[in-house]
């Protein structure tokens, strides 16, 4: 790969070359994409660029790969597609990235500016389509604007609350000659994210914490985005209060830490859910009171005051009133909070021992667990647990959406930030394989496992071809329960076991190992518990090719605990029709 030499401002070139030079100037090293007519002019200079372009098999794969890359590196992921169907194939990953605050820049070709509005071949108003779930988007028709817009796009995507930005460029703007002019500064009158928290808010926050006798750290994905794990740990240990990490925050605080109560929410632990419900203060850090965490909002954490720290002012009070709000970068916020809290605690140190004893008792009484089937078949939770144990805590895990996702969030121990990548806000089936591809590109020395469902895998597995051809040796565990298992679970619980259209028959068709082999991967399969560890070890030993393992598990396993949609967190079930034994708990 040629070394990037910055292009001098004032150089004459085509808009297409200007686009590629701008991406280089923005520091892009990798992009995922697939060409077509409208974007074709850009693919010519891409041929000579220092940027590694990875040719995907479907633009959705490019989008999720860019997301996986961004989630692992903390830098903006870049994807590129042509107009019309190429651009609309990016819609799902853009929505996904918006929901999970992922810095993404998507470049799309557009029909020539004179043809815009005429229903031209492959014309789609992608700027209009993506307005609801991009942080900002652009339609560029003047090639002189390209460098400025690209600089702005990266600035907006990566600062403040991160998110996706789309840049749609008309074909004639790519073809015309222009003068390259990379901006020296970016001025956006309407965009000034506030990163430094107000001193008064920090003082108020510390005072509120020092008064609380039942505080809980409610930690969200923002803590990972802000690289605030080390600061979080200091703050937590200073106060000595229990911690819960949401689905997007798994790894922000070590699972092995004694103060960690687990994940809250619909499939959270009894200890984590109850901690929120019984707390007198939620110390909310980069979390957004999502309905999957709160359950029925009116009964969520009924006795708790709310301290809400977030970079996005619009999250404050959106779902739950904040008693003290701290707007700013959560790492800056925590760093400022540590000395402020020390000072406040020096004046009055609350006694948290009863609260901690109650929480530890719940944690000990209701650990996560599962039934092992007695017919000798493989249980999906065991498969996932063993992969976690054998592969170790430096592994990066991605998942699809469904039961396997919840089990992967529950039964793998996360010790480090950016080791658990999943589609939390959008719940995008098909995220797992392409996100793993992007993660492996971003962290080539890490072992990357996609824990995927048999349903999800069939949505985006074509990217294994991309992996095989581009030396991206990811590992995929298909948790093959021959069903759209999570939907089937709801049918079991709420539709009298009427399994309408959730049987995939994927132990018959497709033959996953053969499918994997046909795509240039190693295909393995495992059906018996006694073969489990050696199959995982076999997969671990292959590092020059992607590996796909078809774990043929029993189909009736369910995800527990569960707070049914729309019900109160107080109605958490640890198994079907089984509530925790509250009477035996002093709460």
């Amino acid at each position: 790969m040629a070394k990037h030499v910055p292009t001098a401002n004032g150089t004459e070139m085509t808009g297409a070359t200007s686009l590629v030079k701008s991406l280089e100037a923005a520091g892009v090293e990798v992009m995922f994409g697939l060409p077509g007519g409208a974007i074709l002019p850009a693919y010519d200079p891409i041929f000579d660029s220092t940027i590694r372009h990875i040719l995907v098999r479907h633009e959705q794969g490019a989008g999720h790969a860019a997301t996986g890359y961004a989630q692992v590196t903390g830098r903006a992921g870049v994807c590129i597609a042509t107009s019309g169907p190429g651009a609309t194939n990016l819609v799902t990953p853009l929505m996904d990235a918006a929901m999970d605050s992922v810095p993404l820049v998507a470049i799309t070709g557009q029909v020539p500016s004179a043809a815009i509005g005429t229903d031209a071949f492959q014309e789609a108003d992608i700027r209009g389509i993506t307005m609801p779930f991009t942080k900002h988007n652009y339609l560029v028709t003047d090639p002189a604007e390209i460098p400025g817009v690209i600089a702005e796009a990266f600035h907006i995507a990566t600062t403040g609350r991160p998110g996706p930005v789309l840049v749609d460029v008309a074909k004639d703007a790519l073809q015309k000659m222009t003068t390259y002019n990379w901006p020296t500064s970016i001025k956006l009158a309407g965009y000034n994210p506030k990163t430094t928290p107000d001193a008064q808010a920090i003082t108020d926050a510390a005072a509120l914490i020092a008064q609380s006798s039942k505080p809980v750290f409610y930690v969200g994905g923002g803590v990972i985005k802000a690289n605030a794990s080390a600061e979080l740990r200091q703050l937590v240990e200073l106060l000595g209060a229990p911690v819960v990490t949401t689905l997007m925050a798994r790894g922000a605080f070590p699972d092995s830490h004694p103060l960690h109560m687990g994940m809250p929410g619909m499939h959270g632990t009894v200890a984590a859910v109850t901690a929120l419900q019984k707390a007198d203060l939620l110390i909310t850090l980069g979390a957004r009171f999502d309905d999957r965490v709160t359950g029925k909002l009116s009964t969520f954490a009924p006795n708790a005051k709310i301290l809400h720290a977030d970079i996005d002012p619009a999250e404050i009070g959106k779902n739950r009133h904040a008693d003290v709000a701290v707007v700013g970068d959560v790492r800056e916020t925590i760093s400022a909070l540590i000395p402020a809290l020390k000072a406040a605690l020096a004046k009055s140190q609350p006694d948290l021992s009863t609260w901690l004893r109650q929480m530890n008792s719940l944690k000990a009484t209701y650990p996560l667990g599962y039934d092992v089937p007695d017919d000798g078949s493989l249980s999906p939770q065991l498969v996932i647990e063993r992969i976690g144990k054998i592969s170790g805590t430096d592994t990066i895990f991605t998942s699809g959406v469904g039961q396997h996702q919840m089990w992967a969030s529950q039964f793998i121990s996360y010790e480090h930030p950016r080791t658990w990548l999943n589609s939390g806000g959008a719940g995008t089936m098909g995220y797992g394989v392409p996100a793993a591809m992007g993660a492996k590109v971003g962290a080539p020395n890490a072992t990357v496992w996609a824990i995927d469902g048999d349903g999800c895998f069939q949505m985006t597995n074509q990217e294994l071809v991309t992996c095989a051809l581009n030396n991206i040796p990811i590992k995929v565990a298909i948790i093959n329960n021959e069903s759209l298992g999570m939907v089937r679970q709801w049918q079991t619980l709420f539709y009298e076991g009427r399994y309408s259209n959730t049987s995939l028959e994927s132990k018959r068709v497709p033959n996953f190992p053969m499918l994997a082999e046909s795509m240039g991967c190693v295909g393995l399969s495992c059906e018996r518990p006694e073969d489990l560890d050696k199959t995982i070890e076999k997969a671990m030993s292959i590092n020059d090719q992607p590996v796909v393992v078809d774990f043929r598990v029993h189909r009736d396993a369910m995800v527990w605990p569960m707070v049914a949609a729309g019900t109160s967190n107080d109605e958490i079930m640890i198994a079907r029709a089984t509530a925790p034994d509250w009477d035996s708990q002093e709460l």
Partner: protein
Amino acid sequence: MTTNRRQHTLEVLVENEPGVLARVAGLFSRRAFNIETLNVGPTEDSSISKMIIGVAVEGHSLEQVIAQLDKLVSVISIKDVTAQAKEVHDTQPDYQN
């Protein structure tokens, strides 16, 4: 049943660029905020337009409307210019009062 709605008038300065009206209108629609009136006009600076938006705040607080509007990169500033926050009632009078 009646709903008490508060009518507010916001003066919003936006970048004068294609699509800005769609951004603002789309935000109100997808967040289920009630727009009562919307006027767009020029300012002395041709790169900036002024929107006068009448919004009836019901489920959402005015702060939430303003915070969401403020997230739009094309929105430069928002001012609450409500002359007097007046109670707006639905057609049926509220007999409980």
